[in-house]
């Protein structure tokens, strides 16, 4: 199994390959509950960004509203951040990336923010293959309003109050695969290794990365009868593949038994090795990916891993054929057409 190596300077703190210590990737102190899965995800984002050597100033952190959407305040203070409107992170993100398309964009949403109020914008983001990492911190309940079910809560799961969920869960991964996201995976906030590798691969990907991260709510949804509790995940987490990621700047040879690993060359030259844990699972086969997810759901398994990847599909930025420079900072000489252009228009409108 490959792990990232980080160059060390002998005297000072450990720095990454752009010379920054992990401290420079930290955020404010979290105000979420102790033990909240979201905090673990923030930690993994910090680790992944640091290990990948992404300059924090080159990242835009986006979010909607909810516990999850507060979390961008708890990592990467050196990155611009936009905590927007409930369920509307996708549109704000779309505008932001159009203005600054050379930036890396990472969005954090929740299951309510995405699959209930935000469903309309979420599906269109997926369709557009917008270049961004979209993380759903998925705990199946609304935390800030004290524990109502969300649309990702599993059928038959039980609230602390005894209420049973009698509606089927929306599988955001199946949806994302079907609608056009080009990197789709599920992980568990408690699985440090899997989540870190997945996030690093996500950073290397160009296009929409949709990661559904099961992130237990210790206050409202971590009891017996919950299907999004630590205990339930520890017992039912079923990885479909084991993720090995080798960044483009790493010089690591990985030796795998042939046929046992699905290799993916990423856009930035990194390599993603997906060791097959399920028989011949092919993460580029869309229809099979969706079928596998539907079957696992019927069997009460929580499949995790990278379900689908397509490194070739054009992103929304490609489709719009944008200039290389950010639209935001194009000079007036480029954005305001010359007087002659107006004169011609006026001449064409005269009698």
């Amino acid at each position, binding site marked *: 199994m490959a792990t990232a190596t980080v160059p060390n300077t002998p005297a000072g703190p450990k720095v990454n390959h752009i010379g920054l210590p992990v401290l420079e990737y930290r955020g404010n102190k979290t105000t979420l509950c102790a033990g909240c899965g979201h905090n673990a995800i923030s930690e993994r984002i910090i680790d992944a960004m640091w290990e990948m050597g992404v300059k924090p100033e080159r990242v*835009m952190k986006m979010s909607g509203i909810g516990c999850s959407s507060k979390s961008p*305040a708890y990592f990467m203070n050196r990155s611009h951040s936009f905590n927007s*409107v409930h369920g509307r992170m996708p549109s704000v993100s779309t505008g932001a990336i159009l*203005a600054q398309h050379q930036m890396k964009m990472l969005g954090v949403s929740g299951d309510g923010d995405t699959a209930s109020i935000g469903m309309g914008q979420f599906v269109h983001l997926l369709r557009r293959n917008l270049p961004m990492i979209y993380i759903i911190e998925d705990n199946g309940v609304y935390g800030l309003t004290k524990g109502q079910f969300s649309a990702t809560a599993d059928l038959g799961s039980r609230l602390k109050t005894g209420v049973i969920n009698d509606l089927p869960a929306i599988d955001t991964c199946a949806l994302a695969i079907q609608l056009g996201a080009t990197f789709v995976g599920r992980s568990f906030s408690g699985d440090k290794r899997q989540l870190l590798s997945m996030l690093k691969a996500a950073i290397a990907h160009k296009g929409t990365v949709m990661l559904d991260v099961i992130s237990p709510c210790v206050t409202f949804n971590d009891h017996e009868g919950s299907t999004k509790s630590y205990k339930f995940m520890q017992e039912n987490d079923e990885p479909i593949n084991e993720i090995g990621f080798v960044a483009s700047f790493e010089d690591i040879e990985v030796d795998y038994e042939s046929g046992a690993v699905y290799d993916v060359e990423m856009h930035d030259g990194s390599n993603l090795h997906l060791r097959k844990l399920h028989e011949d699972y092919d993460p580029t086969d869309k229809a099979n990916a969706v079928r596998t997810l539907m079957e696992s759901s019927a069997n009460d398994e929580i499949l995790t891993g990278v379900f689908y990847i397509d490194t070739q599909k054009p992103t929304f930025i490609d489709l719009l054929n944008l200039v290389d420079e950010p639209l935001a900072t194009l000079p007036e000489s480029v954005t305001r057409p010359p007087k002659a252009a107006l004169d011609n228009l006026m001449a064409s409108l005269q009698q």
Partner: protein
Amino acid sequence: MRESDRVVPEIIGREFRHMATGDLALGQEQGITIARERVINDFSINVATVNGSGSQSANSVLLKSIFGMGVPVSGKNLFPSNIAGLPTWYTIRASKDNYVARTRGAEVLVALNPDTAKQDVLTLPSGGVVIYEEKLNLKQYRDDVVFYPVPFDTITATVCAEAKLRKLVRNMVYVGAVAQILSIDLGVVESGLRKQFAKKQKVFDLNFGAVKAGFDYAAEKLPKQDPYFIERMDQTAGKIMIDGNAACGMGAVFAGVTVVAWYPITPSTSVVEATTDLLKKLRVSPEGKATYAVIQAEDELAAIGMVLGAGWAGARSMTATSGPGISLMAEFSGLGYYAEIPGVIFDVQRTGPSTGMPTRTSQADLLSVAFLSHGDTKHVVLLPGNVKECYELGYAAFDLAERLQTPVFVLSDLDLGMNNWMSEPFDYPTTPQDRGKVLTKDDLDKLGGFARYRDVDGDAIGWRTLPGTDHPKAAYFTRGSGHNDAAGYTEKPDEYVEVMDRLSRKFDNARKLVPAPVAVKDGTSKIGFLAYGSTDFALRESMDQIKKEYGQDVDYMRIRAYPFAHEIHDFVASHERVYVVEQDRDAQLASLLKLDIPAEHVTRLRSILHYNGLPLDARTITEEFATKEGL
């Protein structure tokens, strides 16, 4: 109507000629008095057709032909919310006195819609004119108007071999017939058509053939019986003709817009279409890449979200919408206000609550736009009063949005936006883009940091940074939740109030930055008018009526923005009675003024309201004014 004011005392020459050759019989049969004085360049033509029949280009040719003869003219399309089959009326007003508002009735009717023909004929003023498909047999309905029957189908068949094109070509036949009857120069029609079908010789030939056939038919078979004439003037030289939506699009493009996100909605769609057309032509890099992005969003919530995302990240961004879209944009508009993010929203107003009447005009979005969103939100609203201002306030909106770091709304309406208007040509912006207060890497090197929402300059506007600024201290956390002046989350009462009070000061300062009102007439009258937007056209005409008919002078100030400039307060202060003329039921402009002016002046305001969906006409204002004044 004051016939005496506008009739040129001249006997109709052609009429005598025709009478002498026996055509008098027709006039006698129709039972009308044909010995009338000529009416030159002062009447309206109403073309009644069926939606989807392709009459729009014929109407446009007719309009531009009159324009081409140097006669002041305006065109109004009264169309249904429908793709095909429902009735449509296009009214062209020629006015030697430069009046371009709607009038209540048209003197000349082109009746091509069997379903409305009877009603159309019945609404004509006595002495009016009907040019119609002869099969409709309209003569039975009136004996006091002139009928010109034209066998449109027969004529069309002779000039257009292809049956499927006849529906379109047929329209050009009426252009020809009308041109002949009203003495519109065929050469001007021809050059107008040539311009319209610039690179399509065959299409031109076919269409002009139809015009000519209609023209010749009328010359041969339809002796002049009516008093209406178009005669050459020199009032339109150098002027352009354009609709307000296209003008808004030009404003956006010459502002340097880079991100456009929108959702189609009548009557604003053509703002974005015009913008996109121009961007495709004018904003492609030498390498063939786009220096702009246009996104058709999934709905208006997404459109405004994209605008704010782009504005936050530093792009000049815009959307265009109408009432229902404005409602959907409410929550985001509050975020834009509170988090202080620039963006431009064109609202082309249509009629009514809910879906209302989507193809009718109104000014009834003013209050909801001014206070769009919950919780102490208010917005800067620009109010263009003509097509030139659609362009000028269009580009000014982008400067203001970035200067004030807030969403700026541009309120147009369907009448202004979708109808053709004459205008002086537009001027190139004289000032460079104002990108507002943005700190660069170098600034941050010197400052060592910044507080996003701190009023360091005393203008109540903080400095911002853009994502991508290569400095470890550049970032800040943008949020719609409570924040302090350093952009940190807060629930502390004092910190909340500090930001809200600064926002209020910023809004107050905007009075001086927004387009100043225009003192159209500021004389010594005790009576004043206040109005905005497309109301201007009818109000100017009404002021002349009031002067001529009642001998009353009135002053008039045209408002061009909210928050209201101090000149508007002064105007109210210096007039005993101030009539606020607007196109909505609830006196929204007057209400907004009442919130702003000193309490002792509130009773000076009175309202003249028009809200039936039709463009405002001068007579409505004059009558209402006379009633209220007891004249």
